[in-house]
């Protein structure tokens, strides 16, 4: 990847220097904000149109359902953002979620008195362990994460199947205090969603305001340069996979709390939605740009589409097709935007030779 656009008119005349007062927001950041804003608008439009057709869509119950429905996807999408930003991808999150969810159920089954915070910690730790397997393999093999996590997608799921061997864990097997976690509301907002919000805020803040967070962008933007500027790329990428695994673990525990019924198939195929949410949310698939907030919005948008289709009584078979079309539209739009921005930046490149 070259930084220079072919044939940029570097010396194009008449470039006013940037007005220092107006520049405080920063061009780079403003570009991101545009993306998040457009997602919000899309979300608003979708909710608006659906509500017009069916006013119950805006009822308290419905909004609660919506928030509840998107919480798990939001958490996964945020974890995926961390990974994609470094120009990697984690396809095994669905399998990790399934494995952790089943492990949580098994824990309650074998030790009925376990307080739920313990289960939470155990679940997150198991997820982190799976993430460490991913990260370790990637570090050892120095091959694309895509391939490794495709492999662990099978492997973790296989372990899950093997372990469950057709058993199912039911709501009755888990303590009510744990299950309440999945359904309880605080001031009408589901606890699950609050957890997701905390995760989004924490990761978003970390990515934006901490040195190590910025280094993740650097790695994704130009891995070779990152190595030369002293960033410990291997360590960071490993950490990112552990984090993604831990968040998938968290999502797995919450999944158990919310759905109550657990078998080995929990979360199958979820990875596609997660990647879709991140990409729709403006996280560039080639790393280096995107935010946790955007990815979370992407996840909310995808969930809302699912619910709207059900409410609008559109053939549910369309849902997957819509998700696919949305991914294509999102990356297409990104491309268009990038080209326009590049064209605009070309004009700014000069500094009066």
């Amino acid at each position: 990847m070259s930084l220079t656009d072919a044939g940029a008119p570097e010396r194009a005349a008449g470039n006013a220097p940037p007005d220092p007062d107006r520049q405080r927001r920063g061009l780079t950041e403003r570009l991101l904000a545009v993306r998040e804003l457009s997602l919000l608008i899309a979300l608003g439009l979708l909710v608006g149109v659906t509500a017009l057709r069916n006013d119950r869509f805006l009822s308290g119950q419905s909004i609660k359902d919506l928030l509840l429905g998107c919480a798990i996807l939001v958490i996964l999408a945020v974890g995926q953002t961390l990974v994609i930003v470094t120009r990697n991808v984690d396809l095994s999150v669905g399998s990790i979620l399934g494995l952790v969810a089943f492990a949580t159920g098994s824990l309650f089954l074998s030790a009925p008195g376990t307080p739920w915070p313990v289960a939470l910690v155990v679940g997150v730790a198991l997820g982190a362990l799976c993430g460490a397997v991913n990260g370790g393999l990637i570090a050892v093999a120095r091959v694309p994460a895509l391939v490794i996590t495709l492999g662990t997608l099978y492997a973790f799921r296989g372990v899950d199947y093997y372990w469950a061997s057709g058993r199912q864990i039911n709501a009755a097997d888990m303590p009510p205090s744990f299950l309440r976690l999945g359904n309880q509301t605080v001031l009408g907002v589901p606890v699950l969603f609050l957890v997701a919000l905390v995760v989004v805020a924490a990761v978003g803040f970390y990515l934006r305001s901490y040195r190590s967070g910025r280094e993740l962008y650097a790695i994704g933007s130009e891995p070779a340069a990152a190595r030369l500027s002293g960033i410990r790329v291997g360590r960071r990428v490993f950490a990112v996979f552990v984090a993604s695994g831990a968040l998938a673990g968290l999502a797995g525990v919450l999944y158990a709390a919310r759905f109550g019924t657990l078998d080995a198939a929990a979360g199958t195929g979820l990875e596609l939605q997660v990647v879709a949410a991140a990409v729709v949310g403006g996280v560039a698939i080639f790393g280096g740009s995107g935010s946790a907030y955007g990815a979370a919005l992407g996840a909310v948008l995808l969930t809302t589409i699912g619910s709207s289709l059900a409410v609008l009584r559109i053939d549910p078979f369309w849902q997957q097709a819509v998700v696919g079309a949305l991914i294509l539209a999102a990356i297409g739009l990104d491309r268009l935007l990038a080209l326009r921005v590049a064209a605009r930046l070309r004009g700014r490149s000069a500094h009066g030779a």
Partner: protein
Amino acid sequence: MAHDSLYAAPPTAEAEPGGGRLASVRGLLGSWDAVIVAALVVAVLVASLTVENFATGRNAQFLLLDLMPLALIALPMTLIVITGEIDLSVASMVGLCSTLMGQLWLSSGLSLELICVLVVLLGAVLGAVNGLFVTGFGLPSLAVTIGTLALYRGLSFVVLGDQAVADFPADWTAAVVRNIPGTSVPVMVVPLLVLAVIFGVVLHATAAGRALYAMGNNDQAATFTGVSVARTKFWLFVVSGAVCGLVGIFWTLRYASARGDNATGLELTVVTAVLLGGVSIFGGRGALLGVVAGVLLLGVLRNALQLADVDANALTIVTGSLLIASVVLPNAVADIRARLHRRRQRQPVAS
């Protein structure tokens, strides 16, 4: 961009003259074909000796029939991966082609022959959509085909929705599973072999094949050498789609059932087989022979383990581990070799 296309740092080729590591990876990959063929032979031998009912004609027939879709799709996939791209939408294209075949048969009144041709053309059109997004708009094929994976699968449910079409004429459905008279080799192996030979020759012994390797390694340099990178990639996606159309027909007839979920998840197996066959996910490296051996190895292992009553869940783990091993092992071995080499280098200096 070839290097950027599939994530992760490009292979850590040292720029130093003689780049020891690069050379040893190359040396190893050069023989990866041989490794995989040897593994295949060993697997077949061991399975024949230890697994009851493995070395029978009937089993060979089942094995080959089960492998047909995988083998067919692996052919264009090999070419695509060698150019540094990937097509994850193949299984969804198979599904959509299958349901469209069912829908046409159900409601159009066209002859089945014509429907088959239309389905292949349709597959080509689906591939062309992928190609357009990837080459026309310059988008990463990974993202595009994840999108079309969902889109095409969704559409295939839209096409047939509730139903499965199953009343295909019996002589057609029987024809695809028939054996070559006097053998236990399915007739369908013949077109597969023909296609494999065609793909092999194109890849290894034509100007176009050279261009594929060139653009997989460095598409900018390929462009400067007069290779139409975009156009070639576009047509590869089209070919991939058309082959998926063929597989859609085969699938529908073999299982006498056109339904939306046909071939779900097949893309992962195809990618596994291609990587197992020694094709580099970064593009620019790999051979068709290795891929064919990889497909067979995957099939033989699954079949033998199934016959040996190994749990299906263990099979899932095996598939995943094979994929990981096929990418981790070459690197690990190269590392060890490089280390040994360095030690050998150092010793005379010390003494």
